[in-house]
């Protein structure tokens, strides 16, 4: 058994029993990274010297009251700002941002728990993409089969956990960017309710949709990591003032009498037969555990992708206006006037997908088109949100696949934006409604690629999601399978 097969709680016990040290954990992480990351390409920046130093200090001051995350190596998505540690959003326009000035609130909170940041994780540039092929640095690969994409945009976050390079990671989810890669890589990934986790220090893509969330190997670990990062923050006026429950307590309850809704739109044509089969098997499992399920309708689902691309691109076009080659980031080397300096810095610094979305968003917000596109999409968002509220009047959770298919091959969809966007059809509505959703492993395709089960809950009801996810996980064995990458973990 490798260290990566233990839960966070078990690792913490080993630390306190002196069976292992923080230095052992950090060493295990870097040993694995040096062993497999040439293949996986999950990390953009490593923090090795600093992390090893920190490990020694933590070993010296370990006390009996240490938090459950004490000393555990974590990877952070590269759109979450880390003081003094290079943060690029996988974009050339931030290629030289080697010394960021502050920590994101989530990073501050993790530091307070004494986790050890081992490095920054690859992503689609500015979180725009579903395959990590839009990174301007490298293409992260799926640990289960390196011909396949890990998903995106938090592809590095999911792949690093699946490959056993870190014990857990943080990602961000605007239209599925935590759940879709979690599904593709066979790990647990939660997008919290909008407003539960502070967005301060998360480089903004679409501010009304973005949320930071945890990626882990198990549901229990996920609950522990979420617990550490939630809470209202005076630096983020959209962070919500709500009571925070103890998420681990939710795991102690069973799912007898739980009412599950299964949207018929989520199992329609376009959903791969093996994915559908795995989801139906999961529903059968829930029946055996004492839950009930019924088919329901989320009638506006088919409009979600169109509404999402208009809204998220509009917000992105405004948010990404800040990258202008003046205060930080890369400036064009062309000797031109101020206006052309802006234009060339941006055109040289942004990749194709980012430019496409800035253009779409600028168009949708421009004079004469605002009502027809942007406002229309906002109204459709209301209808989608209402769909969820109606279903949640009668049911506790919504269950379906996370993605219509398992992971696709590198290069398969990169040339056609609309085909790529369709991949997020089952995750996007959740962001538009602002509700929380998780992806957990629920099986494997005949090609050996993981399949994800999505569980969606009411606003701020992460507890019921965890309870539902944990019951399934404990009754099945999917989460114990590991990709074969060679080395000690194979």
């Amino acid at each position, binding site marked *: 058994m490798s260290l990566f097969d233990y839960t966070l709680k078990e690792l913490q016990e080993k630390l306190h029993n002196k069976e292992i040290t923080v230095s052992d954990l950090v060493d295990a992480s870097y040993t694995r990274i040096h062993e497999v990351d040439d293949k996986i390409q999950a990390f953009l920046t490593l923090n090795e010297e600093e992390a090893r130093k920190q490990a020694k200090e933590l070993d010296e001051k370990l006390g009996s009251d240490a938090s459950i995350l004490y000393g555990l190596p974590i990877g952070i998505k590269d759109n979450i700002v880390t003081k003094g540690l290079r943060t690029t959003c996988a974009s050339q326009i931030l290629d030289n*941002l080697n010394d960021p000035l502050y920590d994101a609130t989530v990073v501050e909170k993790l530091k307070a728990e004494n986790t050890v940041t081992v490095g920054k994780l690859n992503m689609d540039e500015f979180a725009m993409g579903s395959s990590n092929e839009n990174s301007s640095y490298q293409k992260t690969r799926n640990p289960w089969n390196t011909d396949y994409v890990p998903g995106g945009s938090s592809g590095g976050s999911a792949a690093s956990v699946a490959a056993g390079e870190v014990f857990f990671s943080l990602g961000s989810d605007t239209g599925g960017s935590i759940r879709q890669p979690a599904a593709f890589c066979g790990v647990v990934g939660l997008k919290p309710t909008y407003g539960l986790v502070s967005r301060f220090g998360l480089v903004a893509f679409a501010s009304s949709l973005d949320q930071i969330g945890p990626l882990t190997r198990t549901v229990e670990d996920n609950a522990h990591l979420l617990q550490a990062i939630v809470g209202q923050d005076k630096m983020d006026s959209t962070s919500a003032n709500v009571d925070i429950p103890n998420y681990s307590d939710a795991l102690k309850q069973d799912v007898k009498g739980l009412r599950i809704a299964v949207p018929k739109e989520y199992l329609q044509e376009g959903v791969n037969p093996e994915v559908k089969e795995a989801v139906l098997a999961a529903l059968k499992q829930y029946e055996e555990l004492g839950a009930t399920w019924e088919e329901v309708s989320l009638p506006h689902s088919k409009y979600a992708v169109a509404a999402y691309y208009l809204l998220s691109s509009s917000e992105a076009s405004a948010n990404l206006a800040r990258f202008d080659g003046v205060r930080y980031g890369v400036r064009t080397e062309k000797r031109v006037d101020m206006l052309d*300096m802006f234009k060339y810095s941006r055109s040289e610094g942004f990749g194709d997908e980012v430019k496409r979305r800035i253009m779409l968003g600028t168009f949708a917000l421009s004079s004469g088109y605002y009502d027809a596109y942007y406002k229309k999409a906002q109204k459709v968002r209301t209808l989608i949100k209402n769909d969820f509220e109606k279903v949640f009047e009668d049911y506790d959770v919504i269950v379906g696949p996370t993605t219509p298919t398992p992971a696709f091959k590198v290069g398969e969809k990169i040339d056609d934006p*609309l085909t790529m966007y369709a991949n997020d059809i089952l995750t996007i509505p959740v962001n538009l409604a602002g509700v929380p959703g998780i992806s957990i492993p629920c099986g494997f395709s005949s090609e050996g690629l993981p399949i994800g089960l999505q569980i969606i809950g009411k606003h701020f009801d992460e507890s019921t999601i965890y309870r539902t996810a944990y019951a399934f996980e404990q009754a099945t064995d999917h989460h114990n399978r590991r990709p074969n990458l060679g080395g000690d973990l194979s």
Partner: protein
Amino acid sequence: MADISKEQVKHVANLARLALTDEEVEKMTKQLGDIINYAELLNELDTENVKPTTHVLDLKNVMRKDEPRDWISKEDALKNAPDQKDGQFRVPSILD
């Protein structure tokens, strides 16, 4: 159908402060046209009496006291600047 012209693409690129090559304008005209045509799907829905959602949480203006506090120093703020002079960000001249 709402096709987009090359002229519109150039106009929007200027608004977005992007310098697109002729090749990019060509490609963008087709791709944006495709995406906008796909978005026409939304017109199937009657939204006459639907309120737009700008934000999923029903937040009103969130205010805090306007109190100064320590934050990034001027020196730090200039640390990542592409160009600086005399404690300020330097940009190409605006006036000839």
